[in-house]
């Protein structure tokens, strides 16, 4: 059922330049890692799509990069404030993999902590712009970290196993070329998150598809 429900803020904690926004879970289903929620951004018309970062008991936690007015408003939320939350939405990662290997870049590591927990803390490779950004790596167990100019694709093992990744588009494009069959979580601007607006399209097999319905996790289709 598509119902936006109110959730109270437990805390908004800094993690390097990012903020971990912790909400009371209430009756919400945390969903499958890689799925996302639309979070009401105070003072803004449109909610912001965020993949679930952590699902501690009684909570839903989101890792947010304050890059615009909506994400800044979310990061500035005070404990006790309430926001509307819609989700979980979209398709998450397929967890039936035998040799999981997580790859993340920048704020794209957001869904990996929950994914790591659900997969039994497999190996992970994370790339960041600076040491400060890399403080977020503490959220992902068993992670090897690289800082620019070193890229995750340079450190990828010859046989990485079943790659599950999320990160900036150039990283995902590079992984798509290097690791056929990798599960890649993409990002797009969304107004609704449930297929209504047609705003979040990405090109899949030569056609525009709505990422909120077809993704955000897509398997390499090349």
């Amino acid at each position, binding site marked *: 059922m598509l119902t936006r429900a109110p959730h109270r803020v437990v805390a908004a904690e800094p993690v390097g330049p990012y903020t971990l926004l912790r909400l009371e879970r209430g009756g919400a289903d945390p969903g499958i890692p890689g799925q996302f929620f639309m979070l*009401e951004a105070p003072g803004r018309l449109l909610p912001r799509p965020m993949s679930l970062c952590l699902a501690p008991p009684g909570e839903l936690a989101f890792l947010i990069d304050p890059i615009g007015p909506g994400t800044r408003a979310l990061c500035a939320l005070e404990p006790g404030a309430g926001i509307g939350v*819609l989700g979980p939405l979209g398709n998450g990662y397929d967890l039936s993999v035998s040799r999981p290997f997580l790859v993340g870049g920048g704020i794209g590591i957001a869904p990996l902590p929950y994914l790591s927990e659900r997969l039994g803390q497999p190996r992970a490779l994370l790339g960041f712009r600076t040491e400060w950004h890399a403080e977020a790596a503490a959220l992902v167990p068993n992670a090897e970290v690289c800082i620019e100019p070193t890229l995750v694709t340079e450190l990828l093992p010859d046989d990485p196993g079943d790659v599950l990744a999320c990160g900036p588009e150039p990283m995902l494009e590079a992984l798509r070329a290097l690791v056929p069959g990798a599960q890649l979580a993409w990002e797009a*601007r969304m*107004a*609704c998150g449930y297929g209504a*607006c*047609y*705003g979040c399209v990405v090109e899949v097999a030569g056609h*525009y598809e709505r990422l909120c319905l077809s993704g955000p996790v897509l398997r390499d289709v090349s």
Partner: protein
Amino acid sequence: MSRGIPGGALLLNASGCLDALAAPEVARSLDAFVTKTITPEPREGNPPPRIAEVEGGMLNSIGLQGPGIDRFLVETLPRLRELGMPIWVSVGGFSAREYAETCARLDGDAVAAIELNLSCPNVEEAPETAAEIVAACRERTGRPLFAKLSPATWDIGGTARAVESAGADGLSLVNTLRGLALDERTLRPRLGAGAGGYSGPPLKPVALACVHACAQAATLPIVAMGGVMTGRDALDLIAAGASAVALGTVLFPDPGAPARIRAELEAGAAAFGFAEPFHARGVASNPLPREAVPDLATAKDLQMRKIDLA
């Protein structure tokens, strides 16, 4: 056809703001579902980014992405009919002939009404006038024809009169206004297509003025839309002359908006002493008796409520 609106619908969605197959429960909370605009040929739509939040509202440049009329008739319409609710089909084209041929193919009981999208800000327009397109479609279909007009004109009342003379059965007012937003870092357009359609709360006074002008200029029933976020917004549009109200941008943040707005609209109409919302139609031009004006506390209660965590 009470009030001139097919099926007596009071709340609809604005075309392109809801996919009834992806969110059937949201569609069913409306009185009729209006499809995304169908064009003669399949269209991929405009390149992303297609969405930008701007001051007070949002821009979109979807560009009429759709399957084309052939696949719509075979794949989409039969599934929409299974919803068991009135289906309005929005029709687009790039010439009067294209509009008319698409309307001819929709001329059956499966379709409650046809809305002619004469005003998409994101694609090239047909060379003919709105009235010429309506006249061409009128010859090819007996279904109720609603002409969706652009607010970007000085004399929308004149257009309303012209499409009425051409055989339209109603008006849909209004489409989005063309707008542009620039990236704060690059000063380049934020949308892949450049400009887009501006929607959201700032469109409401524009829609009110258009509805008011068309209600004076023509006798056609009006489905009003533009910046409706609350039941009070819907009541205002009815007071300006609308017979039904369509929800657009509000559906994006809140798929529960139809039920909320319906309840607010009914409460708002009742507070003014109207037995049903439609009875408020046109009162903007016919002032209420003083005793019917509710006190300020009541009016405040009717404003959009924030999410109540209590």
